[in-house]
């Protein structure tokens, strides 16, 4: 049962028995209604009033919708560049509770790789509950909630909206929700620039902006005309362009080369490599720890206890584990000097991880070298 706390009590409602009821209540009721009738000749335009006509004569008068009002999603495109903000990341499709969003992400016709744009974007307006989740989760602020509510139609098929019908310019959105756009504008435009860079050809331009599409096509054609000429001019030598895929051995060699270069530059000795095979994360951390261990062994002032690069918690744990392993390995390595070559053999096979590991190791080595220099 409810206890009587110091915050409130239980009140028993007073039924007011015993009073002579000879019609006074009826007259009071009439008075209340009269007040409303008399007051209804003015308009009730303030929340603090209870008298007055509360009617808004639609469709001549319409109430302004608040910015946050959400009814039916739309896709945004940038007025200036003409690019749609949508990258086809499927977040909205995943979150949609009634599953009415259907996205087809764009593909580069030449290479077959996925491009951050959407070729088709279907929303079934007749089943959409306007919950707003799609707009909430969109990382690129490209799908937003519109304010339209006059959508009645006799043609149900017409309510399946495609991208061309969903596209709205950002100026349209700032017209209906300026504050909401202002909050996210900076981040959204930055991400848009990133997406534009990765969109080849005219992929990602809003289909309705035919002039912009034509202009871009001309631009690309001009660039293509100029580029083969330029390519023919420059020497086809130096195939060591970073665009080409490296084989694991080549990568390892590259890594070794970089390390050797660093070792020669700085005072830091070749980082001791753990002879045991480690997972990529562990290898990264191992290398880092090994560098630290090497510095400590040198006797110079110990490197800062914390890693120079901020590691995420998972990485930190792995780093600690690897550090312990590396310390052991370093002790072993001290006994038997390990050549750089063997270190190379144990490099991870994963291309990306190796490159990343290499970069990180290089950075760490550089920093360690600096610290070593500072001591």
């Amino acid at each position, binding site marked *: 049962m*409810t206890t009587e706390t110091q915050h409130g009590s239980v009140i028993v409602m007073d039924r007011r028995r015993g009073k002579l009821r000879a019609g006074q*209540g*009826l007259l009071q*009721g009439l008075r209340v*209604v009269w007040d409303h009738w008399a007051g209804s000749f003015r308009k009730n335009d303030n929340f*603090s009033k209870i008298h007055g006509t509360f009617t808004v004569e639609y469709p001549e008068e319409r109430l302004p919708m608040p910015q*946050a*009002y959400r009814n039916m999603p739309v896709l945004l495109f940038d007025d200036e560049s003409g690019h749609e903000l949508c990258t086809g990341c499927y977040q909205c499709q995943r979150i949609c*509770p009634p599953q009415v969003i259907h996205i087809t992400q764009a593909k580069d016709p030449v290479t077959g790789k996925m491009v951050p744009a959407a070729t088709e974007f279907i929303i079934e307006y007749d089943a959409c509950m306007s*919950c707003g989740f799609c707009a909430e989760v969109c990382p690129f602020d490209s799908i937003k909630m519109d304010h339209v509510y006059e959508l009645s139609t006799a043609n149900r098929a017409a309510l399946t909206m495609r991208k061309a019908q969903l596209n709205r310019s950002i100026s349209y959105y700032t017209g209906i929700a300026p504050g909401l756009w202002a909050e996210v504008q900076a981040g959204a435009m930055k991400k848009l620039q990133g997406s534009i860079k990765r969109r080849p050809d005219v992929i990602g331009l809003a289909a309705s902006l035919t002039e912009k599409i034509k202009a871009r096509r001309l631009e690309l054609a001009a660039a293509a005309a100029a580029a083969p000429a330029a390519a023919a001019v420059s020497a086809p030598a130096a195939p060591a362009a970073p665009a080409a895929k490296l084989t694991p051995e080549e990568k390892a060699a590259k890594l070794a080369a970089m390390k050797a270069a660093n070792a020669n530059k700085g005072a830091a000795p070749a980082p001791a490599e753990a002879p045991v095979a480690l997972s990529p994360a562990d290898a990264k951390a191992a290398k880092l720890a090994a560098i630290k261990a090497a510095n400590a062994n040198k006797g110079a002032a110990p490197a800062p206890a914390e890693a120079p690069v901020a590691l995420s918690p998972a990485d930190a744990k792995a780093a600690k584990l690897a550090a312990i392993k590396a310390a052991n390995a370093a002790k072993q390595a001290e006994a038997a000097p390990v050549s750089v070559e063997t270190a190379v053999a144990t490099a991870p096979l994963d291309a990306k991880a190796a490159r990343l590991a290499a970069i990180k190791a290089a950075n760490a080595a550089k920093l360690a070298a600096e610290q070593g220099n500072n001591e």
Partner: protein
Amino acid sequence: MLKTEELQINIGPQHPSTHGVFRMLVTVDGETVTDLKPVFGYLHRNHEQIAEVNTYLQNMPYTDRLDYFNAMANNHAYAMAVEKLVGIEVPERAEYIRVLMVELTRILNHAGALGFLINDMGAWQTQLAFGMREREKILDLFESVSGARLMCNYFRFGGVARDLTADFMPRLKDLLVAMPAFIDEMERLLRENEILLQRSEGIGILPKDLALAYSVTGPVLRGSGVAYDIRRAEPYSIYDRLDFDVPVGSVGDVYDRILVRIEEMRQSKRIIEQVIAQLPDAQGGHINPKARQNVRPPVGDVYARVETPKGELGFYLVSDGSSRPYRYKVRAPSFINLTPLGDMCRGYKVADMVVILGSIDIVMGEVDR
């Protein structure tokens, strides 16, 4: 003694006064009701089964549609259940905003419920129009902050979706000026009105023991004299910091329920004023924990309940460790409150039946889910 024949008639499911698609099989002897069987299920939409297929966040807009009058309260119960299951803490400011929204919902529910009850008694929508006017104001506030009037989808796990807008507070304060005038006017119109008294005093009595046996909750229970309010019995959110009284009736008839609802509106206004005074400023609280929405609760179950304007709304969630609930059960107050309808109507006239049904205040979205 004349032998009269009993007649079985069917009220609903299409009927202007059954508060939704609801059917009553009534056995009458002349003008007196001897038996009443409620038949529902006409609005069954598979809510609980759909919830097992959706993730926890995707269920939030569906909870809006349970008791479609009080979307915020449903959101609150569900958010609380998931937070309990996962172990998420809600920041202060978000708790205050939640209580603000839920108490506004209480006011708007009672304004509408009383209006509909008086309409059922035949008063041609006057009180309903006044109640709807106040509802419109509150719904405008909801729209400005959550984006929708009824299907608010405002609560998230660990807070609310969006902070209050700049124009919210001034309009809320204006509304609080109108609120006592509205409630006092309603009392003047209804409380001493001889006709209303004739139609509601002594009608539809639900005795205390029967109410407890049927596990009725909300204003119906309090009208029968049991001082049970979850906000006091098992305080959740920040209710243990707020001052408010709990009104109870003495007889358990329709009149008592009307009085209890009117007084609850006053107490809700009191709570809202305290919330406005104690609301921490924006810097103090983190409102929208975007990161925590894709929850994957540990294996286990939870039952969380809130005091919605209609009674106790509870969510029983069973998690199997995945991102979708294994079992999702809603304890809907209207469903439970509807079960004693037969006992409440027995012995009264046919014309009283509709009034008694209106005084329970049901929403078929909750009853049928």
